[in-house]
């Protein structure tokens, strides 16, 4: 089976600075040992094509999407959103599938939560690698939010992750 009961997808493009938050978070989460019913996946830009339109509601019950979201907060602040709160999106064709349209289709069968993090810097269309300090620091707390949502207690690991993301530590 391609996806399990809980799917956590990190969306975004690391070529545009903070837009790479989702994939960076997934890379960090790959270091954790998570229950078998959890799939974590670096969706990049392919979430609509490779995940949201391929989930089987018989199997997958919970989808957590991590992405940057401009909601006017301070950089690094986190919000939780439901698909109903997003712009509805429009289907044009199978290539320009936008992020939110497939979510509207699946939201009644699968519990969908979007964790949005306020970016500091999105450089599109210019390429720039690396997250801003604010978003780098937001990784451990976002992981903590996700682990709470999926009911995994990972206290010590989170502490280690936090230390790793503090400047000046080895």
């Amino acid at each position, binding site marked *: *089976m391609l996806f399990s009961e809980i799917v956590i997808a990190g969306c975004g493009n690391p070529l545009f600075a903070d837009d790479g938050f989702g994939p960076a978070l997934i890379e960090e989460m790959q270091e954790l040992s998570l229950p078998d019913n959890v799939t974590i996946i670096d969706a990049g*830009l392919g979430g609509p094509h490779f995940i949201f339109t391929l989930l089987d509601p018989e199997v997958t019950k919970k989808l957590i999407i991590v*992405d940057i979201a401009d909601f006017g907060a301070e950089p690094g*602040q986190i919000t*939780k959103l439901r698909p109903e709160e997003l712009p509805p999106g429009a289907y044009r064709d199978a290539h320009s599938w936008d992020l939110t349209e497939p979510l509207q289709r699946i939201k009644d069968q699968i519990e969908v939560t979007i964790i949005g993090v306020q970016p500091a810097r999105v450089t*599109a*269309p210019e*390429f720039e690698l690396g997250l801003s300090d604010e978003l780098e620091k937001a990784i451990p707390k976002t992981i903590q939010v996700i682990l709470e949502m999926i009911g995994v207690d990972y206290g010590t690991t989170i502490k280690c992750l936090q230390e790793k993301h503090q400047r000046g530590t080895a």
Partner: protein
Amino acid sequence: MVLKVNDQGIIETGNWCSITPVRGVEKLAVGKTPEQVPKIASRVCGICPIAHNLAATEAMEASIKCEIPRDALMLRHILQLANRLHSIALHDILILPDLYIPGTETKINPFTAEEPVRTVAKRIQRLREIGQTIGQIAGGDCIHPRNTRVGGMYRNVSEQAKTKMYDLAKEGLPLAKAQMDFMIAVLRNYQAREHVDVGGMKVALPKTLGYHNQGYLATHAFYGSSSLDECPTWDIRRFKEVRPWDWYMGEMEVSLEEPRYPIGGTTKMGTKVNPQMEACTGIPMYDGQPVEVGPRARLAVYKGYDEKGTVGQNIAREMEYTDCFYEMFDCLEELKTDGKVVADFIPDGDGTLGWASNEAPRGTDVHLARVKDWKVQYFSMLVPTTWNFATCSAALTGAPWQLAEVIMRGYDPCVSCATHMIVVDEDNKVVAQKLIQ
């Protein structure tokens, strides 16, 4: 897409400019390690990360002259084929709304819950799942493969994983055959029509829809080639890139508008357009001409396929469905799960120019690289859609303007994925209620 049409609405000149988001990647790659650059390359597209990852990795290997073990190559082949399988199925969803349920005047909505389309949609979904699952097993991840590395693959698969891939491929083959037959039937039905409907307009369907005389480029029947090959199938000396302003129209103003055209009508009258300036990439040429790359090019070069036009191109893509599985069976047969998958010696590179082509679902994806002392000095990507820009533009000539997009979709083009960001609402009302950290 900018179209100059005559009084009958027939395209005299068509310019298709898409902003393929690869500008700047060449600069970004310089100074990075050969391990980093394929990861960067795989991020330029939301649908083709696997092709870009493989082409970039193999361009690095070509530059440093590193030959990878056979079993690593087999895993890459399987990954590539699995990705193609998913891509063909996705393309079916893209073109089905242009086509009709045979014997009716009803266009196909792939999302309807009604039969007979429902069965087709379920089959497409299962084929996509099979492709993605096999890709995940071989590549370590189904979107951005983690298992590929310069010098081979990080790890081989287990015997159980190999059996799983076999089982999935065995399940997929009859589905692919049925899906191919269905798609060819509806494409032939479309081709036989005198008229088709576009947004309520009755449009005469030319028998030469999408014809062009630009020739084909393919570097392998299904996988690719590189400068390390004994007989490379792409020759850098036959390649030249020219500026888009030699091929595209200059500034002009929109003087024909059709509000009935699907999804909001065509661009408003009076809008200024300038294809010469809006086309941000060069025009790649092979033997002095733009060429077509993609499924038909592969079939034409390696299997003697000769049907021209948009329908012929779509049928060629469908014919690759079953080939994906036949090739996959061969690769699985050859794959030894106890074989090594990393080269014994991975050189640091001496600055030699290497290239690798990958026959991506959309066509030949050529990456060029120069690596010295484990640092990338030069990197360039010639992506399939860039190859097809000028060819597709030529294929538009002579068609009714209403069918221009049908022709374009035949190329299964990469439309700019760029970035996306959720903008919640302009008043930021959500902040107060929803901020959790």
